[in-house]
């Protein structure tokens, strides 16, 4: 054989080896069956159902922050944004576009998704999809308790607890005024967090307000019991960690709650991932698992299912933004972020999130989803959290007066 022939043979062989590997990989992408468990022993078999950044959780719980992850698989059930909300969105179909500044053009009235039915062949698909995400049916009002279990590498698990009240002023389906709750400040959303534990934090109150006018800066107010005053915070605090947690406000709701126009978006593809939309997790379980965990953070193993997700890469337009990129895995049907990860400004892996949701019934017979548990870890510093919420969704009779800054002192002392 000549050298050339040998070379051809090697290339030919290499081609077939590659083909074989690809096919075998494809063949191996079988879906886990209901009742099956994904854990340390078999997670590699299903590794393609997770972002790469989450896999160390199965191996050793990210170096001991959790017990190695165990996911109990259930059958995938249909889920979506509430049907009435999708119906409300239909009037917006094909009505709006994205302008050169990345804003919605055409006079969007905040009722329903601005881009219902946006398809992958749309050149602005990623941005339009993220606007849909931003204006998805959130909830109308929510009130309840939240708990953040935290662990610094090598230390005990600690926890912070607080009460939260939030109002979404747009896209309301069942609670009057609907679908838009007109308010003098022109708010889209407001949330008040009042810390209750530990006692060193008790009495602190945090109010965040997001305006309908997308160009208007968010606002943050802080009430410190030691000062007994409401202090105007800096809205750019949305990008820096909230006291004692890995999460900034921009990292909320599964990993991304930033202002849409302040970021650019790139569609990376579609992917089947494991998600949890019917989690039974609550604060009592969080406390119980922490107590039994032997120094590990709580983790919700129940009701994981295979979901179809869009993978979107997010970059901040602000060059000072602390994260270089964030990648989110958003459920195609419910518009909930199932997984997310972020790199630091140098591009090194920094933060990882994985979120559990539960499904709740709306009085109109619809169903909606809400966040009940979020795992977050700063893999560089070695600090991890598991955030849990027990909220009553809808029917809390929350008014604008409940989220005025003057209401903050009434939450404290």
């Amino acid at each position, binding site marked *: 054989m000549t050298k050339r022939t040998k070379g051809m043979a090697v290339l030919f062989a290499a081609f077939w080896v590659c083909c074989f590997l690809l096919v075998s990989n494809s063949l191996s992408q079988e879906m886990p069956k209901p009742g099956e468990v994904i854990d340390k022993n078999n997670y590699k078999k299903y590794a393609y159902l997770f972002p790469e950044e989450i896999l160390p959780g199965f191996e050793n719980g990210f170096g001991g922050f959790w017990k190695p992850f165990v996911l109990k698989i259930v059958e995938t059930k249909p889920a979506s944004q509430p049907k009435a909300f999708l119906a409300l969105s239909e009037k917006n179909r094909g009505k709006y576009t994205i302008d050169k500044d990345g804003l919605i053009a055409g006079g969007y009235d905040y009722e329903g998704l601005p881009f219902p039915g946006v398809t992958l062949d749309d050149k602005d698909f990623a941005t339009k999809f993220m606007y849909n995400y931003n204006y998805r049916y959130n909830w109308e009002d929510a009130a309840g308790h939240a708990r953040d279990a*935290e662990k*610094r590498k090598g*230390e*005990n*698990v*600690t*926890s912070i*607890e607080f009460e939260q009240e939030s109002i979404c002023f747009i896209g309301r389906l069942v609670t009057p005024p609907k679908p838009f709750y007109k*308010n*003098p*400040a022109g708010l889209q959303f407001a949330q008040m967090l009042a810390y*209750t*534990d*530990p*006692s*060193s*934090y008790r009495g602190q109150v945090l109010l965040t307000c997001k305006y309908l006018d997308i160009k*208007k*800066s968010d*606002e943050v107010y802080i009430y410190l019991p*030691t*000062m*007994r*005053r409401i*202090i*105007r*915070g*800096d809205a*750019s*605090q949305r*990008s*820096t*960690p909230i*006291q*004692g*947690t*890995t999460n900034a406000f921009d990292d909320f709701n599964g990993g991304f709650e930033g202002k849409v126009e302040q970021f650019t978006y790139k569609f990376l593809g579609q992917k089947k991932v494991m998600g949890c939309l019917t989690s039974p997790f609550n604060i009592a379980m969080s406390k119980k698992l*922490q*107590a039994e965990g032997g120094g590990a953070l709580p983790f919700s193993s129940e009701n994981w299912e295979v979901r179809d997700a869009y993978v979107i890469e997010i970059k901040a337009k602000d060059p*000072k933004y*602390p994260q270089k990129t964030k990648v989110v895995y958003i459920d195609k049907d419910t518009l909930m972020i199932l997984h997310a990860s972020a790199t*630091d*400004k*140098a591009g090194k892996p*920094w933060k990882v999130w994985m979120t559990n949701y539960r499904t709740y019934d709306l009085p109109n017979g619809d169903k909606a989803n809400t966040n009940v548990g979020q795992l977050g870890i*700063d893999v*560089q*510093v070695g*600090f991890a959290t598991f955030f849990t919420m027990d909220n009553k969704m809808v029917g809390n009779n929350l*008014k*604008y*007066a*409940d989220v*005025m*800054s*003057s*209401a903050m*002192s*009434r939450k404290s*002392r």
Partner: protein
Amino acid sequence: MKGGGIKMKKAGQRFFLAVVFLGLMAFLIPNYSAAFETIKLGEETEVTFYGFLRNNTGMFLQNPQPFSQSSNVLATERTWFRGYTDFKIMNELRFWSTIQFAYEPRYKVEHGAKTSRLLDPDGPILKDGKEYSEYKDIDDILRETYLEWKPAKEHSIKIGRQMAIWGEALTTRVGDVIHPEDQRFSLAFANLEDTRIPSWMARGVHSIPSIDSSFEWIVNPNIVQDKYRVNRLASIADNTLEGEPGERFGLHPETRFDPPFSVTNPLLGPPFSIPGVAVTHPFSRDWIEAFPGFWVPTAIPTVTAKYPGAWSGTRGGFRTNTTLSGWNFGFSYFHTQEYNPVVKRGDLTGGIDPDTGLPLRQYTLVFPNKDIIGGYLNKQLPWPGVLRAEVIYVPNQPFNTFDTRDFDAIVRRDYIKYMVAYDLNSFFYFQWHKTAPFDVTIEHVGEVIPKNKNIQYIIYSTEQKQWNPAFNMRISTNWLYNLISTELVAGYMPWGRSGLIMPAVKFMPSWFNKKLSFELKYINIFGKNDFQGLGILRKKDMVLLTSQFDW
């Protein structure tokens, strides 16, 4: 023997109570979650108990302290126990109380000082530490207790002993005018919260959502013991015959011979005066130069204090708050009294001082009425940062005057205090410190007395500035997600080239779910002299360790 037995018995009781208390704390406090879980008593009814045990240990760095009784460097050894009760009776009704006990020992450094009843010659001498300990007086122990009635979401009315803080300044007080201060046990600027003296008041806050506004009103009768109605001041080294040192946090005495505003007779020396400590204005008005270089008094002061009346001195006012186009602003009015005493020179009483044979002259420490009109605002700027500003205008601020034509030595002048601040939170955020940004606050505070001629600065033979600007700055961050917090507060006042530097580091480990914390703070006060700006406290540098257990 009997007395000794009683002492032993009391000491034993205290020890026993301390052991029981610590035992209860250890038994009751779980180590991973809330100290005391909220107790549910019904669908709407619940009660929560929490609080802290705190110790402040401070050491003076200058040894000996000027005008002190010994070279002991213990600056403070204060231990607090504070308990909060938050009792939600129903959604519309809530009861709140704060009880506090504090213990401080007798300080060798101020042995022999008068109590903080400023210039009261009949005041008892400190001897057993009870001056600072709080355990038997209801006005000390019952720090707060009020009922809050919320007839609707928009309305809240609190009745009882409470604290209401107004204003925007973080490093000092401008619009925060409601409560007097207890300045005896700490440098007030280093502990703005705990030095406030709470007040009995009715207070309402009414939100008006339709115009994004709220209205707050306060009615505050002085139904506390008289000493709690005004600032409680640490006594200053005295020039009376006893030659008393000052309390630890008392101001530097006037030591300059600057007749007629500060006089002494250096030729006589002790026991007629503490060397270097002068008689201050307006008491100095009764001294004359009998012979060249020889100053003598012509009358002996008899000093009393006239505190604001319980009901006649009722304080009150209102404050508005409005949010409009991103601006948060409001106006305030408060009628109150001057909380620092102003010395009113009176007539000769007709009496004779038995020691000197000189006539007695009446001097009264008065706390005149005044009205405080204020305004404030804050705004998230279009670029990074938050603007905060506030101003108060007092049209009838009482001052002591050097103008000897004014017999009672008190005049009223316009007084303005303002603050402009810029907060840059989260702007300084670095790759090498990802867990938190550096928060920076810069505050400019100014005091203006348009007609400042002859206006006396506290006790000194120093005329107040027409414009007295100060510049304060605070830089803070935390490390490893709040394991360690660091802070630097610095202030500079061109007047007297004075200011302060306060770096602090706080350690909050995960033990007991962050219930335990330790803060080490260094307080440095500088100035070119002892009589201007902050220089009046410049020799009180200290390190302060605060250990706190939150339960």
